[in-house]
């Protein structure tokens, strides 16, 4: 199957190889959460809710010098083409929960909130490839909304390599082609990598190109996210007054 048209150079959904899908973020979508956000990348749509820092529920897990960060990833039954039976608890979700937790924990200043716990819940409402990245982006906005101190914004984006072309932000069709899929998460300002996943083999020089593309994507996402947050903060400020 041709994923990049050899004549026009366009992809199946009409994007250029280095073009991202349309992204959209919204702050404050869950009423009872301390922070919440929704994030869309094309047809992928995820919702994130952050609770905490709050009292540790399981006392044996309490850490005396830093906060405990927990993350739960789940996919809504209706998020994929055929309904999934178990929305959470399978191997895939457990792995993604772990990945999201680790990449976000790298940026949260956990030592400022000892003996407390931060819960991050992310749910995929529509899955169209790149749910991992979308979840991390949504969770970052939600954490910032909850007023949890962070070193930097963690943003994530994926890139792949199909038809000898590096492609940015794969959708479901491109993702299921079975080619290499590199998911990168970075601390936006310092460009430190907090997440790097690839389930295939790539030659060194190609990999560098693909990864560079993904990092560019992350930076674009970070730019957008900080605009959304600034808009939201200004809104809160002007409404409160004084």
């Amino acid at each position, binding site marked *: 199957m041709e994923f990049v048209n050899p004549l026009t150079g366009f992809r199946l959904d009409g994007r250029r190889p280095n073009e991202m899908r349309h992204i959209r973020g919204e702050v404050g979508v869950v009423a009872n959460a301390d922070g919440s956000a929704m994030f869309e990348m094309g047809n992928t749509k995820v919702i994130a809710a952050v609770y905490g820092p709050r009292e540790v529920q399981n006392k044996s897990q309490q850490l005396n010098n830093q906060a405990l960060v927990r993350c739960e990833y789940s996919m809504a039954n209706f998020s994929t083409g055929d309904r999934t039976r178990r929305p959470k608890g399978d191997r895939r979700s457990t792995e993604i929960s772990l990945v999201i937790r680790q990449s976000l924990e790298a940026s949260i200043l956990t030592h400022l909130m000892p003996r407390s716990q931060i819960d991050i819940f992310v749910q995929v409402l529509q899955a169209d490839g790149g749910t991992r990245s979308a979840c991390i982006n949504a969770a970052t906005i939600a954490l910032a909304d909850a007023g949890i*101190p962070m070193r930097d914004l963690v943003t994530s984006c994926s890139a792949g390599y199909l038809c000898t072309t590096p492609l940015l932000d794969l959708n479901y069709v491109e993702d299921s082609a079975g080619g290499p899929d590199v998911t990168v998460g970075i601390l936006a300002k310092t460009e430190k990598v907090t997440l790097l996943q690839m389930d295939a083999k790539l030659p060194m020089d190609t990999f560098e190109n693909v990864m560079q593309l993904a990092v560019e994507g992350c930076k674009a996402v970070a730019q957008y996210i900080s605009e959304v947050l600034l808009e939201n903060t200004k809104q809160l400020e002007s409404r409160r007054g004084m």
Partner: protein
Amino acid sequence: MRDLQVSLSQTQRVRFQSALQQLKDLSPGSGPAATVVVADSIPVNLEDSVLKGHGTAESDGQLVATVCGVVERVNKLVYVRPFRARYKPEIGDIIVGRVIEVAPKRWRLEINFSQDAVLMLSSMNLPDGIQRRRTAVDELNMRSIFEEDDVICAEVRGFQHDGSLQLQARSQKYGKLERGQLLTVPPYLVKRRKQHFHHLEDYGVDLIVGCNGYIWVGEHLETGENVMLEDQDNHMEKDGQSNLKLKGDQDEEGTFTSVETRRNICRIANAIRLLSALGFTLSLEAIIDTVELSFASNISVKDMLAAEFYVQTAEREVQRRVSKLRKKA
């Protein structure tokens, strides 16, 4: 619009947008760099030694914000004041909380902080009003004072060396709250004031604005300082009565609240819900003004949370701020 889902009609939406725009114009223009988000660098002159406060960190020789909020500068101190965050206690704050556990010699309270607060049996006045050592019997009777899920008002006493938060309730005005409702609002909307206990005489309602964003609206009860002033015998007698009241919830005389008062409680509660959903500061004047506006425009209690009054409240807030600015000028 975090907790209020209203569907506005076309005209209402236009009115609402223009009200918000006016609020934006009215808010003092505090420089472009005053509002920061995570990882924004804060312009400071590092040569004249600055003190890095909360919400800031240093990276690559630059001062960066770690939360979203407004940059504040006090002499050499630079810090970022976040908007939406959990409550951060300060000593002397008046808070409202809910008992989640009765532990030996102490109650654990949920107060919207990153940890549970502790109210020791020894740091509160006993119902009999006598100053004495707390005995084992007192400890066994703790549930007759506060039970799990009771709502309590108390004061922040201080931090223990291990970082846990201690409360105290050494006055008649603190203690269990009954016959009313508890509201939770974002704590940044509550300002620290001299007075957090309000008695609204017109409505027969007590309003306790906890610094932690928990607000109590309940029927007015005649307790507090004036009881203390009366002579000792009388005092003892009254306390005995109130103790009975605490025990017997079915005590029909003590627990009857008139329909009118209940309506007033709901009306004030809805006014607070509305203001907090709109993100306006919860000052007493704003709350009373909203309640009066709802009376003046003949809006029933349940319609207060509907679209029309939502927009009206926003417009009213604009008016309030305009008149306040005029007064200043």
